[in-house]
Every structure is written in structure tokens, then in C-alpha cells.
């Protein structure tokens, strides 16, 4: 039994989806090239979903390559590291690649070109004898985030609780992007080594490498890399090329025929999904003790002379990547970061490459993309094409209708928050309505309202807590009385019936005795204080409970 032959699994399908022209051959003509070292690197402190870390270095300080620059104790965070050795020349707000276009805190390093690494102690194969919790901490300290796009800190996803299947996702369903494809073609063994570590951490029982069937070279390379696994632990699964099958929930549906419940994570149904790039980064950490300081980026589109994949240090100016590939003097400066379906437009090419930069798509207008979505699109004609392609099986036209009407209750009723913003609906809409833009608006507005409501709630709760304290005092008094009465009643039942009288008297005596002791021992002021403290604690408890209820 060889692992390289696929078991004849029948694949499931998710609803809708699109067959898109993939434009991938543009950037797969040459091998992954390494971008030469640059003079200056700009490293945003926050590069992923979650909280920004605390900066650990100062302006003027010399840092070594791989040295940690910022870290946070917050669970949902990932540290950042120096991509080169050199001097910190500034720490401050600079433009970063983010849909909002707002500047954010960045650390600037001037390269000294000495390639002076911090001391490294790779664990190598010993990783399989290290407890998972330690490995998770190592992955976290290496600043590894999901490289597929969202940039969720990786270590958090790797729980050990009941995960059966690990999916290493090589489905790169967006047109133009080929960085995962090239990585699989060229570094299959490394990806497998990294996957094995993840599999060890989560105690996976099987590892499925999913690749779309339009990437035969990558499939062949990955199959060759698992050829000597005779246990069937690894399996390469080709899946049909349908956008957006690369989505976590979609790929799980396709290969396992399971639906991740709305509002939950794949963990909840025993699956972990990791991008091939992430597996590769984990390999680098385990076998080279390298933090995540570089990644493969697809530079493509018709704005560069030689579209290709580059291995780029995090913090490199995008302009340097474009120039390496050859730009045209009169080229349009529009760049999309990510793919044409879910990426976003950048306002300049002077921004740094960050951990989640998988693709820079140039000259979108000449590539016949980004048709000006004028403010006056036609109204929705309810044709239902959007319904036919929605992978979440929503009614996009109704979402559009109610988000346009700002009827947010209805929008949520029609499951706005199950929308994955894949853009299929907007792609087919004959009225060319920028539907996803409406959904993003509605979502952020609902979040905003929720926040305001929470703030109002806190004020109200303060008032209520005061009321509650008064109530509590009253209830406590009543409770004590009631307990007393019950104790009197309950006692006789405990003991023999004929002893009622004697026992009751004895019990009463004992109680009096105990009380006396208590009074003697406990000074009066402490008594009062503890009661007050108790009330405070109760109030806090109550508030916490209430806010918890509100959240859920």
C-alpha cells in the first residue's frame, strides 16, 4: 500500500462557486527568486489579526538578524523579528498595507549587510520528543501567522483537543496567485516536514494535502515527497478547481463532506486547516530555528515585465519587488495586494511587504480588472444569479436590499455574518453592484453599534449594580432568617424521630455556643468589612455575568 496513490474518495461539493480564468501561467515561468538585500526595512508592529505587541527595542539600537522586535502577552498576537541585522533608525507611524489606508506603528531598520544572525539552536527531528505545548510556544515565539491571507496567529489554532484531521491547504483558488503553487513545486519535502510537526502537536490521525487539479506539477511534487510514507498517514487530494474552494470551510466540505457550523471553527468538528506556506514556516522554525522573517510573494499582472515569485524579507518596500521584476516607465501605479477577488487596493507602492502579503497584482486597469465601479450602478433586478454562485448559500440580493435600506436587523436575519466576502455574487451581478462593499459596510456598522451599545450598557450596569447592592442586602437578611427557620425544621428529620426534643435543644445550644465563639474571635470591624467586600464581590460577579450574557 503506497501513500502516493489517492484513495478513491468521492468528493463533496459546496454550493455555487465560480470557474474563473486563472492567469496563473503568467508567474510560473521561472523558479522562486530571492530578492537581494535592501538598504532599509519597514516592519509594521501589527501584521495580523489580533493585538499589537510591545516594542522591545529603541531607536539607535543595533539588532541582529532574527532578533525579536516586539512581543505581546496577549493570546491573540504574534511577535515580529528583525529580517536583517542593522540599526533601528526610527520607530513611528508609517503607511502600511491595510484596507483602511491609515498609517500604523512601524520599526525601521537600516541594514548593515553583515547578515549577523542571533544564536540559533534548531531542534530538528528532536521536535517529535518535545511536548506539544513547548512546540506551540516555539511556533508562537517565531511569529508564525496563517500565511494564506487572514494572518491568524498559528499557535492558537493548534489545540490538541480531539483533532482528527489536519488539512494542509495548497488550494490557491484566487486567480493570478501562485506562491503556494511554486512553494509546493520547489519545497515539497520541507512542507511535509513542517506538516508532520503540526500533526505531532495536534495528534492528528491523518494529514490531507489538498491541491486543485489545475496544478499538476505541485500535485506530483507533493506526491513524490510523501512517497516513502507507507502508513497512509499522508495523503494528497486533488480537488476540482472552483473558486473559492481554498476557503477553510469550503475545503473541509469538499474533502470531508462536513460543514463547519456557522460561528464555529474547524476545531469544533475535529479538523485543523493550515496553509502550505505556514507549514513551510514551521519547518524553518524547527529545522533552522528561524522566525518568520521572509515569505514567497507573487509579483504579477501586466505592470511588470517578468511576473514571478520572489522570496522577500518582511519589511521590504514593495517598490523594490516590482523593480526587480522590471517595471514600465509609464505604468499605472495601481496595485492590489492579494488576489483580484478578495484583495484590496493599495494607495502606493512604497508600502512594506508584510507577513500576509501573498501577491502583488499590478496594473489592474490594463489587466482589464477593476472596472470602474461607478457610484451609479443599476438597481438590482432580482435575477438571482448571485444566489446561484454564493458558496455560503445566502441570498445576496436580499442582503444587498436590506443593507442598502440600513435595516440591520433583517440583514443579520438573512445571515450577513455567514458571508465570507468571496465576491462571487459581485462577479456575476449584471447590474454590476459592488455587493461585497455593501456587506463590509453593513458589518462594520453593526460592529460599531454593538460597541456603542456595550458602552451604554456599562454605564447602565454601574447604576444597576448599585441597585443590586441594596437589593442584595435585603435578600441576605431574608435568606438568613429563612435558613434559620429551615435549620430548625430540618434537624429533626436527620435524627431519630423520638429524639426530636433532645436534639433540637442540643442543636440550639451548640449554635449559641458557636455564635458566641465567633463573636469572641472575630472583631466587629472585620465582620463589617468582609460583608462589604462580599457585596462588592457579588456586584462584580453580577456585572460580569450580565456582560457575559450580553455577549453571548
Amino acid at each position: 500500500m503506497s501513500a502516493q496513490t489517492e484513495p478513491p474518495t468521492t468528493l463533496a461539493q459546496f454550493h455555487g462557486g465560480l470557474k474563473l480564468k486563472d492567469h496563473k501561467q503568467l508567474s510560473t515561468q521561472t523558479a522562486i527568486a530571492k530578492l537581494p538585500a535592501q538598504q532599509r526595512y519597514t516592519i509594521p508592529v501589527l501584521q495580523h489579526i489580533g493585538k499589537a505587541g510591545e516594542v522591545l527595542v529603541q531607536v539607535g539600537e543595533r539588532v541582529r538578524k532574527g532578533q525579536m522586535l516586539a512581543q505581546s502577552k496577549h493570546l491573540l498576537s504574534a511577535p515580529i523579528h528583525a529580517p536583517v541585522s542593522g540599526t533601528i533608525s526610527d520607530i513611528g507611524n508609517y503607511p502600511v498595507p491595510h484596507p483602511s489606508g491609515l498609517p500604523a506603528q512601524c520599526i525601521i531598520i537600516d541594514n548593515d549587510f553583515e547578515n549577523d544572525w542571533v544564536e540559533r539552536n534548531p531542534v530538528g527531528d528532536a521536535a517529535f520528543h518535545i511536548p506539544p505545548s513547548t512546540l506551540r510556544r516555539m511556533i508562537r515565539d517565531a511569529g508564525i501567522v496563517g500565511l494564506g491571507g487572514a494572518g491568524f496567529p498559528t499557535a492558537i489554532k493548534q489545540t490538541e483537543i480531539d483533532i482528527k484531521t489536519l488539512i494542509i491547504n495548497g488550494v490557491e483558488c484566487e486567480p493570478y496567485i501562485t506562491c503556494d503553487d511554486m512553494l509546493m513545486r520547489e519545497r515539497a519535502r520541507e512542507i511535509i516536514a513542517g506538516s508532520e510537526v503540526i500533526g505531532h502537536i495536534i495528534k492528528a490521525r491523518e494529514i490531507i494535502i489538498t491541491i486543485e487539479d489545475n496544478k499538476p506539477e505541485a500535485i506530483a511534487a507533493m506526491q513524490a515527497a510523501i512517497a516513502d510514507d507507507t502508513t497512509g498517514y499522508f495523503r494528497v487530494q486533488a480537488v476540482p478547481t472552483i473558486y473559492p474552494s481554498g476557503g477553510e470551510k469550503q475545503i473541509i466540505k469538499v474533502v470531508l463532506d462536513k460543514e463547519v457550523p456557522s460561528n464555529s471553527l474547524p476545531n469544533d468538528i475535529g479538523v485543523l486547516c493550515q496553509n502550505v506556506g505556514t507549514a513551510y514556516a514551521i519547518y524553518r522554525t524547527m529545522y533552522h530555528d528561524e522566525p518568520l522573517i521572509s515569505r514567497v510573494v507573487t509579483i504579477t499582472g501586466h505592470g511588470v515585465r517578468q511576473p514571478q515569485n520572489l522570496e522577500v524579507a518582511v519589511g521590504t518596500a514593495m517598490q523594490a519587488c516590482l523593480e526587480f521584476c522590471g517595471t514600465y516607465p509609464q505604468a499605472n501605479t495601481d496595485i492590489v495586494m492579494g488576489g483580484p477577488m478578495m484583495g484590496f487596493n493599495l494607495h502606493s507602492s512604497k508600502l512594506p511587504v508584510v507577513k500576509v502579503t501573498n501577491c502583488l497584482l499590478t496594473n489592474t486597469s490594463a489587466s482589464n480588472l477593476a472596472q470602474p465601479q461607478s457610484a451609479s450602478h443599476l438597481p438590482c433586478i432580482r435575477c438571482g444569479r448571485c444566489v446561484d454562485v454564493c458558496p455560503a448559500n445566502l441570498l445576496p440580493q436580499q442582503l444587498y436590499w436590506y443593507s442598502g435600506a440600513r435595516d440591520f436587523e433583517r440583514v443579520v436575519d438573512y445571515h450577513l455574518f455567514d458571508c465570507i466576502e468571496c465576491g462571487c455574487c459581485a462577479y456575476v451581478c449584471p447590474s454590476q453592484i459592488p455587493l461585497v462593499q455593501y456587506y463590509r459596510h453593513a458589518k462594520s456598522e453593526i460592529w460599531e453599534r454593538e460597541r456603542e451599545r456595550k458602552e451604554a450598557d456599562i454605564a447602565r450596569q454601574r447604576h444597576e449594580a448599585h441597585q443590586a447592592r441594596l437589593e442584595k442586602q435585603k435578600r441576605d437578611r431574608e435568606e438568613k432568617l429563612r435558613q434559620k427557620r429551615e435549620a430548625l425544621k430540618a434537624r429533626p428529620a436527620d435524627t431519630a424521630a423520638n429524639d426530636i426534643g433532645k436534639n433540637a435543644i442540643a442543636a440550639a445550644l451548640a449554635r449559641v455556643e458557636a455564635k458566641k465563639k465567633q463573636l469572641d474571635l472575630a472583631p466587629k470591624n472585620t465582620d463589617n468589612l468582609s460583608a462589604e467586600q462580599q457585596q462588592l464581590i457579588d456586584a462584580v460577579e453580577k456585572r460580569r455575568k450580565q456582560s457575559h450574557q450580553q455577549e453571548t
Partner: protein
Amino acid sequence: MLFAKASSPYMHDDSSVQSIMRKVLYALIPGSLAAIWFFGWGVLVNILIAAITCLAAEAWVLWLRKRDIRNTLLDGSALVTACLLALALPPLAPWWLTVIASLFAILVAKHLYGGLGFNPFNPAMVGYIVVMISFPREMTFWTAPVGIAHSELSFLDTLQIIFSGHTSTGIDFDSITMATPIDTLKTQLGLEHDVETTRQSTQYSPLFDTISGVGWQWVNAWFLLGGLWLAKHKIIDWRIPTSFLLALTLIANFFAVYDYASYSSALFHVFSGGTMLAAFFIATDPVSASTTPRGRWIYGAGIALLVYVIRSWGGYPDGIAFAVVLMNIAVPLIDYYTQPHTFGKPQK
């Protein structure tokens, strides 16, 4: 810097409302030509009158509402409304009848509700119903199909009849008009004649030739062809015509088997009157139809049921307009209760 504001997706297929409407118009051509061939120049004159009125009315409202006149007129929806309306009206309808119906369709049914995309009722059918109720006599001016007519009208004669009500050559109106097969059958059944006797009688047998009447069967067949082409190119949703035709066949078949003397066959129903036009062009108007996949099955079947009821027991000859508008009323309810099962939600 317009692109900087645009958000993803940055790709789009090449569809547009304009191209959809254009294809609908193309698909109407074979059926319309057949209608002109069998029922005379009046059909074409109707189309022209309706088109001019609808476009002018649309332009006027857009001007009043300070909207982009050029682009909206070019979206083609007014032209489609005009054609559907004209094809539904009798070929020799006086010009003012067509004008009134067109004005109602565009001004009231479409723009009073907010224009394209916001009209809850099918505009062409609202226009049709208004004149049907107000001018029932004129609505029976169907020309006899070619081959049966006692005399055939020239283009000029047709123009004269439509614009002045009589011809210079003094052709007798009765010699050129004739009740439709559906209408005829209804009258005869009312006179206690059964389906077969009516169809075989010397008076009517030429009209009922072969399946569902001279001309009518061919007009329907050509509309069916155009409709299939639209469905194949995904311009219209295939569910509505399928469920409409399927339901009509089943219901008609049920009654025809139950009492073949008083109910005509399923084939007759499917290929007569405006059935195919309704199935592929009228019921599929996306704006006023149900928009959910399951809802469209219900919507199509509902129209079929109402059409059959009105044809068999109602007071009007062909019930398509009423059936469509009645189902339009039910659309919000249907849509609400037929939402698809969202990914990741518990199965209901």
C-alpha cells in the same frame, strides 16, 4: 484615482442588464415573426406603437426624476415591456388602447414604484389588465389566422383599421376577426357542447386544426424555441418555465382524464394562447418574480394553477395576466419562507 476607492472583487464577468435585455429581445424575434405571419401586420404595428410610447414615457419620467436618461433607456427594460405588452394585445387593437396600456405599464406599474428593480408587479401585465377591464370589447379584436381569414389585410389596411377603426376598401370587420380557440371553446362549453364536438364541427374545425389551433401552435412553438435558447444561456432562470409548464400539464391532464368532454387536453393548454410567451418571457421577469430557488418552483406552479382556473372557470378568455399579477402579490411571502439553507446552519 477612481480605482483606489473601488473594492474587491476587481473582476467581473461580461454580463450586464443591457445584454440580458438585448438577448431577451432577440429571443422574442422568432415567435414575433410567426405571430406577424399568422395574425398579420397588426402585430408589428402594435409593437411599434408600444415601443415608441414606452420609450417616450420612460424618458419623460426619468427627466422628471432627474435620472440619467440615456443609460437607463439603453438598459432595454422599457423595450422588453413594450414588446411583451404588444404581443399580448390583440393585433387589431385600436392605437389608443396600446398607448393607454403602455403608459400604464411604464408610468404607474414601473415608475410609481421606483423604476426598474422596484416594481412589485409585472408592468406589461398591469398595462394589459387595465385595458382588459376597461375595454373588454376592443380586447377581442383578434384577427383570424392566415388560411382561415376570409380576406387578408394589407399593411395599409391594417394601419387604417388601427388608427381610424375602418378601412377605405370597406372590408367587413367580422370577416377578418375571430375569437381565439381558447375563447371559442369556452363559449361552446358554455352552450353545453363538449370539447370534441366543438373541435370537429364544420364551423370550428379549421380553427382547431391539429393541436391547439392554426397559427397559435406555431407561435407558441417559436416562443418555446426562443425561451429554450434564453434558458440555455442562463438569461432566464430555468425553474420558473419548467415548473409552470409542468404544473399546467399535470393539472390539465388531471381534468382532461377526469372528464375529457368538458376539459381540453394538456397539449392544447400548453400550446395555445399566451402559454409559451408567459412561461419564458413574462413569468420570468426577474424583478417581479420570486427570487429564491425554491420560491421560483412555487411561483411558476402557482401561475399555472391560476391560469388553468381562469381559463376553465373564470370570466376572461386567457388568464395569464391575472395569474402573473396575483402571484406577484404573493412573492414577498414566498421569498421569506423559501430561504435557502445557509452553509453551516443546522438543518431545519
